[in-house]
């Protein structure tokens, strides 16, 4: 079981009702972490439309969640 921080932005934050939370996870990878949190918060966005970042850098869905890290799910961006 790893304890980490998850950040939510834009529509994910609205759906979760919070900007960040501390999560204890036994997911094998970041994909599994997202699916568990999607089920908990009812996120509409499927994983294939997101990117994932760990500690401020883009990461891979297959990476294992690391205890103490900061994970962010990145919805499709709309800057500019």
């Amino acid at each position, binding site marked *: 079981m790893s304890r980490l921080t998850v950040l939510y*932005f*834009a529509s994910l934050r609205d759906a979760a009702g919070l900007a960040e939370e501390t999560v204890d996870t036994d997911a094998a990878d970041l994909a599994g972490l997202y699916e568990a949190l999607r089920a908990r918060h009812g996120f509409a*966005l499927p994983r294939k439309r997101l990117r994932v970042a760990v500690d401020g*850098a883009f990461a891979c869905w297959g990476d294992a969640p690391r205890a103490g890290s900061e994970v*962010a799910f990145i919805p*499709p*961006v*709309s*800057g*500019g």
Partner: protein
Amino acid sequence: MDAARRFRLSAGPIEIAPLHARLRHPAAGACATFEGWVRDHHDGRAVRGLRYEAYAALAEAEGERIVAAALARFDLKAALCVHRVGDLAVGDLAVWVGVASAHRGAAFEACRAIIDEIKRDVPIWKRERYAEGDAGWLHPGEGEGGRGA
């Protein structure tokens, strides 16, 4: 913006003059700029204003990477970009890109490449407020709202 940074987020109005001054170079004959302004409409709906939110740490790293890549790829003398976050009204400056080069071809191409990549890769999200009173985050995807300024 401190002298070493070529991309930053700005919580207040973007001041163009000091950015423009940083592009000046005696061997530069061409300067291309792009400004993204808040439009009064999007996908047929009247827009009253919008809010930009960023994942700041990653946005600044990605923005810096994009501008540095343009400097490496094109024959440029200077390149800079600033993107607003927070609440904006119609007509406000949302993003500014400026590029200086010896010749105009590289300046236009690099300026276009930078704004295209900023819009594609930098974790910034737009929440539009509509004339009807509702609002929504834009998450461009297959067939919906992918067409920006």
